[in-house]
Structure formats: structure tokens, C-alpha cells
């Protein structure tokens, strides 16, 4: 088999960049919905790496893992958005810094 034109390393590097961008979103943004979107971005970055390794190893396991991650992500989004909606009703805000309950 001839080596693929785009090496696996490039995919992994791209995946890392997207992942860290998602991480920055989680850390720096305060809007809960945006944080959620950033988490989705991180998941997609991981998916990309998985698919790349699946091609490299010639087995389908990586792709199946991507499939499962997508499914779980869908469940997570449904529950997470429901939580955001529920919180919004009481706090009238989607800012996660408003969520803290600890008294100093």
C-alpha cells in the first residue's frame, strides 16, 4: 500500500489545534451556550483524530468510536440544553459565573 498523501500526523495536529481552541472557549467564555458549543468542538476534534487513526490501522474500531461519541454527544446536548433552560428560568441568565452558590 502506498502511503497516503495526507499523513496521519497532519490530521492529529489539526485535531489538537481544534481541541485547544475548544478548550479556550470553555475557559474564557462565560455564556453557557457558547461553552457547550466549545465542548462540541472539542468532541469533534477528538473524532477527527479517531477517524485518522482508524484509517492508519485499517480497522473500523476508530470509526465506530466516532459513531458512539456522536451518539453520546447528542444525548449530552439534549440534557445540557435542558439544564441551561431550567437554570435560565430561575437565574434569568446564561452566564455561568452567576451559578456559583458558595458563600465566601
Amino acid at each position, binding site marked *: 500500500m502506498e502511503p497516503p498523501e495526507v499523513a496521519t500526523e497532519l490530521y492529529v495536529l489539526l485535531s489538537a489545534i481544534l481541541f485547544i481552541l475548544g478548550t479556550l472557549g470553555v475557559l*474564557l467564555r462565560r455564556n453557557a451556550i457558547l461553552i457547550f458549543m466549545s465542548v462540541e468542538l472539542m468532541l469533534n476534534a477528538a473524532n477527527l483524530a479517531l477517524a485518522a487513526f482508524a484509517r492508519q490501522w485499517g480497522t473500523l474500531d476508530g470509526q465506530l468510536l466516532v459513531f458512539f461519541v456522536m451518539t453520546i454527544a447528542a444525548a449530552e446536548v439534549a440534557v445540557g440544553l435542558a439544564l441551561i433552560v431550567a437554570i435560565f428560568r430561575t437565574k434569568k441568565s446564561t452566564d455561568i459565573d452567576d451559578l*456559583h452558590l458558595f458563600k465566601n
Partner: protein
Amino acid sequence: MENFYNLVPLIVIIPAIGLLINLFAGKYLGEKGVGIVAVGASTGAFLVSVLLWIALVDTGFEAAVVNMPLLDGWIRIPSAGVEIPWQFRVDTLSVTMMLVVTGVGTLIHLYAVGYMHGDERFPRFFVYMNLFLVFMLTLVSGNNFLMMFVGWEGVGLCSYLLIGFWFDKPGGEGWRNSDAARKAFIVNRVGDFGLVLGVLITFWTFGTLDYYRPHEEPLHVAAHGAEESAPVFAPDVPEAEAVEHAPSGPLGVFNQAHLWLEEGGHRVDFGLFSMSFEATLTVITLLFLLGATGKSAQIPLFVWLPDAMAGPTPVSALIHAATMVTAGVYMMVRSNVFFHASDTTSFVVTLIGATTALMAGFIAMGQWDIKKVLAYSTVSQLGFMVAAVGVGAYAAAMFHLVTHAFFKALLFLGSGSVIHGVEHGHHHVAHAHGDEHHAEPFDPQDIRNMGGLRHRMPVTYWTYLIGMLALAGVIPFAGFWSKDEILLDTLKLGTEQGRLDGYVGFVLLLVAAVFTAFYMTRQVALVFWGAPRTEAAAHASESSPTMTVPLVILAVLSVIGGFMNIPDGFPVLGSLFGVHELTSWLEHSVVYAHAGSFNFLLATAAVLLALAAIYAGRLVYNDRVLRTLRLDPLEADPRTSRAFALANAKLYWDEFYFKYIVYPFRDAAHWLADRLDWAFWHDFVHNEVIYGTFQRATRVLTEPVDRGLIDRAFNAIGEAIRAAAARLRTIQTGYVRTYALSVLFGALLVMFIILLPVIRELLGM
């Protein structure tokens, strides 16, 4: 038809299923449902027995050994070479017992449905009854002594449970019932101790407990008859060929015993000492005999059986007359190879059996309780069977066992019917006269309270009469044939071998037979003849069909049951029904079974003596005496009053046991409890030594060690942690984003650790 053999586990499983159904669902089934389940289970077992019978006839009486499913590796200790499989043995002897147990058992179950009607623990009664069938059938169908022992103990348990079934009757009667149950259980322990020892010695001697291994046939004696005792192989096989066919590999105990006896000179090593094989067999059989005296109520352990009549009457009929008490006889017939080999044991067995027969017959003449009379009669008849085993008449013993099961079950069920009828009459009278009648103590089992019942209870009367004639040994009823065979075999032991025990046994048994006819006449006269002596008897009524139908069936069996084993040379009947059918049937499994011949002189004499006793009984208990019965005529007559008093007091057996065994034992136990247990163990060892030492030690440990050292150390640790936590707490801000940053930091740390080799390589380290 051979496939029928494989059904034999069902004979235990079907009653077990019945009892489980009644145990768990009995409450919801109602009396009718419980009765159907219990009788159905018993009938199912009976049908299996019949199928096994057919299979045996069809295969030419070839015995079979069948493994119990799931339990065939019952006891297996490979390192010790012990392997006792849960195996059933289907041979003519076990099938005979199965047929008796399940056949009579089914009739009694049916009867009990009527008898126990209205009892508050109706389902429990039938659970116990089915449990009894399970154990009894385990006892008779096992292929090794251990299975027999399991059944043996199991039926003892059921006997205990059922004797004490009415443990909560008011007015002290409940205590009497439970005392009777305990007595039966404890007395039987003495006998079981003998049996256990016997079984253990058997195992030590033979290395196995199997009667016969699978595919092993009993080695037969050459010709039937006590005088030809040298065991050789089956007569139709030439000697040389027979040796080739001799079973190879380890043998079952009986064939092994056969071979060792034939070789002679075999010794059994018991570690500290060794004994000749013949002496070992004597020890084993004497221990077995001890077991049999317990279970089959022989001197000296018979005292529990009369008391056992405290149980419900169907129990008395099934367990304490027809089946369980014959287990001892079955066990001895099963071990006939052992018993035949030991003259000493045979002598003891004959004497014990004959003495018991005579003594119990004597006591029966002085009893007032209708069931006690029958109980002593049972002891007496069991004595006949044991004596038959003693003189080597194993077939006769089994024959008497079967016929006795028929007519004694009949008599017990009849007495139950009478008691039921009289109680019914008593209630009727009490209702008519208001409540004050209830206050008077009234014993429905006392035959002084009866009389003239033949008009009130005709079915019970006629069946009872048949049972009485069968028991008394009047030709052609069943009892005549079996008793005559025993008497003749006993006499022949004396005349043909010149053995003293033959003569003594014959005389004792003959007198016992006369007693039998007399006390049965007395009982029938007091219960049924003459005029009613109480209002209860006058208002007694016939029992329901569920009770009378079994009576009629058993009566028919009591009439024709003897025809199964008609002796050689009996005119007419022999050609009609075949000659000694039962013996030829049993010969296939009982090596030393031999057919009885017919002695016209002896038979005539026996029948004439029985008739004379009946006539004498009728003379003593004539209608004039029966009308106003104050005292028994024997008691009133100064010539016999002392003897009657002795009989009435049961020859003071119980008092003897209490004075010389029970009380000394109790005193010893008291002494041990006070001195050894309380004073020494409790006060001194436990309180002073252990508790005191411990207390002093703990006092030392508590103050300086625990409080001073350990507590302080832990408090210091706690303080340190609290101080550290106060600082660390500030990290916990409550803001999600700071947590996320920490997670990222942690993840990077992990990555660093993983990549450490790469980094070190890069930095050239």
C-alpha cells in the same frame, strides 16, 4: 418393560412433590384440594410400584439398580475411597415392600381425608404423611445401608411429628401426646445407635455399603432349606462355568460375605485387634438386632409403641402397624445372608421375638383402650415376624409382614371408625342435654364406654370381625396362612435340627397365638356385642364412605391375602392359586428364602386352639357380663385377678425403666449441671479465670494506653488535617471555569508524564 425400572426415582419424587405442594399451597387448597394432592401422590407412588412389579415379572425377576438423577454422586470422598451412590434397588423384596407401603398407604391416606375432616392443621397432617412415604420408600428402595439408614431416621422423624400431632390438646392431653412423641423418639435413638454402629462396622469390614453392585446377581444356595447351608452358585449353572461367571471387581456386601464364608478363615482387622469374619458378622447382626428392637418394638425397646397411639388413628394404622414398625423386619430379611451366618444371633433373635410375642399378647388382654390393645397386638405380631427371621424363615416373615399390614391396618382403621362414631354420639348427646355433659371426662377410646355398636356401625363391625378372624388365625383368613408357616418353621427348627430355641420359640408362639385369639374376642365383644353401655355408644353413627371404603378394601385383602403363599400339599386351594407364590417371588432377592410345607396336624391344632380361645372369650364375655360391665370378669374372678392386674399395669415395664434408667440418668445430669457446668465451668473457669483476667487486662489497656497514647495521637492528626483543610478550602471557589482550568492543568501534567522520555531525549539528558 425394562424401561419401567428407570421410573423408580419417581416413587420417592412423587410423594415429595405432593408434600411440597401441600406445604406451600396447602393453605389455599382447602381440605378437598389437600386430600386430592396427598392421595394422588400416594396413588402415583403405588402405580409406580405396580409398574415396577410388571417390569420384574416381565424381565424374569432380574433385579435392577437405578441411579437417582442429580444425586448419584451422593457421598463421594475419593481420597478415602468412599463412594456411596444414591441408588435404588428394584428387586422382588423391595418391590414387595413398595407395594405394601404404597398400597396400604394409599388406602390410609384416603381414610385419613375423612378422619381428619375439620382438623385445624389438616394440610400439615398430609405433609407429614407424604413425608413419611418419601422416607419409608427411601428406606425400602435403597441399594445400600446408608440410604436405608436415611429412610430409617426419616420415618422416625415422621413418627415423632405425627405422634405429637395433637400437641396442643387441652386438659393435659397435649402434654401426654408430646411426651409420647418424645418417648418414641428417644427410645428409637437407642436402637438407632445400634444400627449406626452395625452399619459402620459393615463399612469397615467390606469397604462398601452396597447390597449388591449394579449387574451383580445374588449368589444362591444350592438347594432350599436350612440344612443345606453351604453357599454354591446358581444350581442350573455347572460349577466350572459358574466360577467364570463369578462377578469380578469389588462386590456388594452380601456376595462378598458369601464368598468369605465359603472360603473360611477370613479375618477382619480393626486396628487394635482382629476378629474372625464369622465373629464380626455376629457383632454386626446383634447391633442390627438392637436397631430392629427399637424400630420394630421388641423387648427391650418396645415401650414406645403403645404410647405412640396418642397420634391420630391413621398414623397408628400406617406407621405404627403396617409399615414403619416392619422396617426392622425388612432390614433383617434384607440382611438374611448375615443373619443366616450367625447361629448366636439367630438364637437371640428367636428368643426375643417369641418372648415379645407372648408378653405383648399377655398385656393386650388387660388393656381398656381400644388402640392400646391393638398396639400390643402389633408388638406381639412383630414378635412373630422377628422370631421367623430368627429361625431362618425369611419368606414366612415377609409373608406375615404383608398379611399383617392388611389386617392390622384394617383393625386400626376400624378402631378409628369406632372412635369417630362414639365421639360423634358423645357430641350428639351433649347437644341434647346442654353443656354440662361436656364437663364430664369422657374417653371415646375406652372400650368400657362402648358396647352394642354392631347395630349402629354395621360396615365397621363386619370388617372389624374379618380383621379379628384374620389376626386370630382362623382358616381361610390371611393371618392363618402366615402364622401357620411361622409356627411350622419354628417347630421344624427344633425337630429337624434339634435346636432348643426352635422348641422354646414354638411353645411361646403357640401360647401367644392363643392369647391373640382371646384378646381379640374380648375386644370385639366389648366393643360390638351386647348392648350400649353409654349414651354416646347408643347414639354412635356409621362413618363416611371415605372411611368405610378403605375398610372394605382392606377387609377383602385380609380374606384373600393369604392365598398368595399357600404351602405345599394343601388340598384344592394350592391348585387354585398356585403353591408358595410369594416365596418363589422372594427367592430371587432373598437368598435364604425357603418355602414352607404344610403340616395338616399342626394347622388343625392351631385353628382348633384359636377357635377354642374365641369360644372361651365368648364364654367369659357373655351378654350378661357385657350388659353391666363394672369390672372385667377376669379382674372379678379371684383366680385371675392378679394376672389381670399385671397385664393392666403393662408388667411394670415403664416403672422399671423409670426407676433404673430414667431417674438415675436424670440425677446424674443434674449433678453434672450443678457441679461440673455451673460450679466449675461457669463460676470458676469463666467468671474467675477468664472474665477476671480479661477485666484486669482491659483496665490497664484503657487508661494509660488507649486514652494516654492512642487518643492523643489521633487528636493531633485530626487537628493537623483540619488546619490544612482550612487553607485548601479556598481553592474551592464555586466557579466552574476555575475548575475547568484545573482539569486542563491536570491533563497537561499527565501528558507530560507520558512524554517524559521524549522530553528527556530532546534535552539530551
